[in-house]
C-alpha cells in the first residue's frame, strides 16, 4: 500500500474515533471558549483594553488548548496497536503524516471556532487587510502545532506521564509559531512587511515536517 494511502487511512480512522469520543468538540473547545470569556470579566469590562488584547489572547489560548487537541487521547497508540501497524508494514513516517492530517483538520476547526468566539467577545482592533493575514497565520500555526505535538507524542510514547511531558516539550518549541503569528498581524499595525513572519511560520512548519518524517522510524524503534 502506498505511503499516502496508509497516511490517509490512519487519518480517516483517527477522525472516526475522534467523532465518537468527541474530546475536542465536547471538552477542549468549550473550556477554551470559557477561558476566552474569563479574560474580559477579569479585566473589568474595559472595552478599549479588551479590543487591544483580543488577538494576543486568541494566540495564547489557541496554542495552550491546541496542544490538548493535538495530544488528545484518541491520537495515542498502545503497544498492541503499534505492533499491529509494524506487522502490517505501515511506514512510521506515513503514520506520523496521517496523525498530522487528522490532527491538523481538528486543529484548524478548533482555531477557527476560537477565532470566531474571540471576534464576538473582544471585538478586536485590527488594521486594514488583517483578516487574510490572520487566517493564513491560523492555518500555518495549526499545521506547525499539530506537527510539533505529534512529534512530542511519539517521543513520549509509552511513558506514564506522557501528556505532561509532551506539553512541556511542545510549549517552548511552539515559540516560533506564536511569535510568527502575533508579529504578522503586528507588522500590519506597524506598516512593515509581514513576509519575514509568514516565512518564519512556513519554515517552522517545513522543519517540523522534515523532523517528524525523518525521525519517525528511529522513534518507532526506540519506543518499542
Amino acid at each position, binding site marked *: *500500500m502506498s505511503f499516502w*494511502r*496508509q497516511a490517509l*487511512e490512519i487519518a480517516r*480512522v483517527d477522525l*472516526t*474515533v475522534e467523532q*465518537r*469520543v468527541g474530546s475536542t468538540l465536547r471538552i477542549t473547545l468549550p473550556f477554551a471558549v470559557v477561558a476566552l470569556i474569563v479574560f474580559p470579566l477579569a479585566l473589568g469590562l474595559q472595552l478599549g483594553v479588551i479590543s487591544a488584547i483580543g488577538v494576543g489572547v486568541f494566540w495564547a489560548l489557541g496554542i495552550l488548548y491546541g496542544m490538548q487537541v493535538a495530544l488528545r487521547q*484518541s491520537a495515542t497508540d*498502545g503497544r*498492541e*496497536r503499534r*505492533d*499491529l*501497524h*509494524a*506487522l*502490517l*508494514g*505501515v*511506514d512510521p513516517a506515513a503514520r506520523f503524516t496521517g496523525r498530522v492530517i487528522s490532527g491538523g483538520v481538528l486543529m484548524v476547526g478548533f482555531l477557527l471556532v476560537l477565532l470566531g468566539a474571540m471576534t464576538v467577545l473582544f471585538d478586536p482592533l485590527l488594521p486594514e487587510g488583517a483578516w487574510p493575514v490572520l487566517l493564513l497565520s491560523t492555518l500555518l500555526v495549526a499545521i506547525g502545532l499539530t506537527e510539533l505535538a505529534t512529534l512530542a507524542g511519539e517521543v513520549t510514547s509509552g511513558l506514564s506521564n506522557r501528556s505532561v511531558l509532551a506539553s512541556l516539550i511542545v510549549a517552548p518549541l511552539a515559540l516560533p509559531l506564536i511569535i510568527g503569528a502575533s508579529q504578522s498581524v503586528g507588522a500590519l499595525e506597524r506598516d512593515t512587511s509581514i513576509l519575514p513572519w509568514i516565512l518564519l511560520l512556513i519554515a517552522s512548519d517545513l522543519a517540523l515536517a522534515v523532523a517528524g518524517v525523518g525521525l519517525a522510524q528511529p522513534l518507532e*524503534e526506540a519506543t*518499542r
Partner: protein
Amino acid sequence: MEPVAHFDKAGVSLGGRPVLRGLDLIVAPREIVGISGPNGSGKTTLIRTAATLTTPDRGSVTILGKDTRGRDLGATRRSIGMIGHSPGLIGELTLGENLDHVARLAGIERARVGRALDVVGLGEVAGRRAEASSFGMRRRVEIARLLLTKPRLLLLDEAASGLDEAARQLIDALVESVCAREGACIVVSHDRAHLDGLCTRVTSLAGGSLEGSSA
C-alpha cells in the same frame, strides 16, 4: 529448505537485564513449535523477537531469510502474524471496522473482510463496538485478521487462554492453514496438554534458554 525462523545463540536484554541467553532455535517450514515455561522465563520476549519487534543484542535472529537487525523489514513483517496477550483493537470502532482498517492498511480486498468475519462466527455482531465486546469476540477478530493477512510465520502468545472450545478450534485451524502454505508456527502456552496435541515439537524455556540450548 530454508528455515522460517532461526535463532542463533540469540541474546536479548530488556532494561539491562538479560531475558534470552544464547538461545538456539530453528523452525522449519510446516513445523509447529510449542514453548512452555514459567512466568518470566522469556516466552513473550522470544515471541516479540521472532516478530522482529525486539532486536537481539547478541547472536542473531533470521526470519524468512532476513536478519532482524537489518533495515527495511517491512516485507518480512508483512509475512508475520502475531496474537499477543491483549487484542490490539481500537475500542471505539466496531469489530467489522477494526478488520476493515487492517484490510485497508494491508492492501487486502475489502470483500474478504465479511467472509473472514463469517468464518470466525462474528458476521452477526460485526457492528458491535470493540470496547463493548467480550474478550473472546475481540480475539476472534484477531483470528479473522490472520485469515486475511495469511502469514508465513504465525506467533501465538497464550492466544487460546480464556477462549471457549469453538474459538480454540479456530486457532488450531489457523495453525494448520499456515503450515499448509509451507509456513511455520511458534506457540507459547502454559497449557502443556494443548501444546502436546497441537505441536510437532514442544520444548520449555527456563531462565532465558531452551531445553538443550547452549547458554
